[in-house]
């Protein structure tokens, strides 16, 4: 029920967002449609939309904070303060890390080894390792730290006979947390590498 309500609110605010272009303080009023046409879609055809400053929407949705997970098509929501709704990346594809560290913990080895066996016996499969950090510290440094984590998993896999061509790496740093809370338990869940097929 709460989910339905949230969806309704999101839809309503999107509609509002669109209509705001014509109700804002601007005299250069535009309808939602022209604003969209005048915006510039990104070159790769992804879902991204830019607006000239003079015709930009003046409201944005902050309901319940965001975000799909990094993990492929999986959907995951968190509120600004926490409350994870769902996590569809299965546990046997997540490797967790200590604070400020990219070292593979002993308890994570079985997860990496199982995935490595599957990859080594199926050379056509390509996987993406997505590195993440908790929210503490500088955002761009965290991007680098997330990549370092993903690379240490990759190195371990290659050492087990996986071809380097089968393993791609991307870091999201602290931008896509699995847990939205600002506590040690959430931070521990966010310091991770997800193996995405």
């Amino acid at each position: 029920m709460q989910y339905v309500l949230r969806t309704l609110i999101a839809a309503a605010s999107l509609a509002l967002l669109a209509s705001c272009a014509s109700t804002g303080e601007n005299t250069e009023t535009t309808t939602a449609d022209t604003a969209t046409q005048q915006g510039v879609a990104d070159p790769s055809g992804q879902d991204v939309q830019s607006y000239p400053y003079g015709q930009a929407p003046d409201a944005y949705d902050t309901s319940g904070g965001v975000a799909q997970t990094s993990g492929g098509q999986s959907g995951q929501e968190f509120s600004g303060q926490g409350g994870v709704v769902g996590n569809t990346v299965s546990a046997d594809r997540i490797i967790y890390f200590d604070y400020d560290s990219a070292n593979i913990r002993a308890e994570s080895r079985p997860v990496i080894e199982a995935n490595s066996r599957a990859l080594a016996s199926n050379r056509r499969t390509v996987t993406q390792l997505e590195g993440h950090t908790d929210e503490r510290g500088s955002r761009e440094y965290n991007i680098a730290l997330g990549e370092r984590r993903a690379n240490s998993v990759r190195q371990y896999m290659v050492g087990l006979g996986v071809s380097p061509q089968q393993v791609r790496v991307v870091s999201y740093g602290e931008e896509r947390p699995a847990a939205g809370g600002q506590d040690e338990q959430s931070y521990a869940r966010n310091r991770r590498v997800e193996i995405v097929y």
Partner: protein
Amino acid sequence: MKSFVKIFGAFLILLGVGAPAHAELTIDVSKGIEVGGIPISIAPFGGGAPEDIAGIIASDLKRTGKFTPQPQDARADYSVTGQANAGGPRGYVVQFRLAGAQGGQLLNLSFDTPPNQLRPVAHRISDLIYEKLTGEKGLAGTKIAFVTAGGGFWVLVVADADGTNPKVILRSRQPIMSPYWSPDGSRLAYVSFEGRRPQIVVQEVYTGARRVVSAAPGINGAPSWAPNGQRLAFTLSKDGNPEIYAMDLGSQNPIRLTNSNAIDTEPVWLADGSIVFTSDRGGSPQLYRIGPGGGAAQRLTFEGDYNAKPTVSPDGRYIAMVHRRNGRFYIAALDMKTRQFRVLTSGGLDESPSFAPNGRMIIYSNGQRMNAVSVDGAVKQDFALPGRVRDPAWAPFGR
């Protein structure tokens, strides 16, 4: 003495099902009052304009920490009076007068303006008063960019320096990071994960036109403009680990400036073309400096176990950064002249500092909200904007 001043801003957010909600703009200038802001009285403007011009001026001046607006007719060192009347070629005529305690006239100006420009005109008046009385340029008319997220989207917002008048100039289903203004204030460079991989994009703020300037394998991060506006520095990991590169915007050919097995990222330029950046080559992240063409790196920070994300004051005197000690993150500033290192905030999850164009204030995120602190730590501001505010970036003077 500690007094908190709350200003209930006219900041309107549209939330949910159309009932407009009012967010308050809370500004704590306690320490500014402590050191004694200059008393200035600002009388309500006559003429019935749809904006509270005197209120905007009072709020702007109070936020600088250098002035203490007084009620009308109270004793003050300076007084502001004015009118905003319908008429003139553009719809409204705004006239104001700044006088000293003895009534001596310091400023007397009038503006023809359309009704939708009354708020910018009020900011302009604030900056004229500030500059006349302090000798330095004011920030009321400047802009701030920041990133926030909600409803499955990340948005890049450009707002006025008081947090009002937000404009969503980019909306994406993938993360947006690290906006950085061009020196002329016409473009923003940022990181976009569109297509599920990081790219560096330059967007023209006033047309919305955008161009991908780097999409190398691996990290494409932390863009910053050279002072001449012709070059970008950024981080690429295409050669195995994150290194600093500089690229002429005309050439599309990034030149590598660092060479270490460690993380090198978050480059910013000094006026002489040298670059300050974050590196953990010594074990923990610290700030280093290299020459315009790279070469040997000189370590700049030695306090605490984590110093990252440098931002340089426009005159090059200060470098502010994210600083960790005892597990808490603060904003700190290094005086490049005296080498004095000063922690400016009370700490927690502080990140993403960005200098104001007059070098007085530093804007940052406390992990939840946008805050600002003066470079001496005396003046503090707390902005209540909708959403978790990330990566605030203060625009240069201009336009």
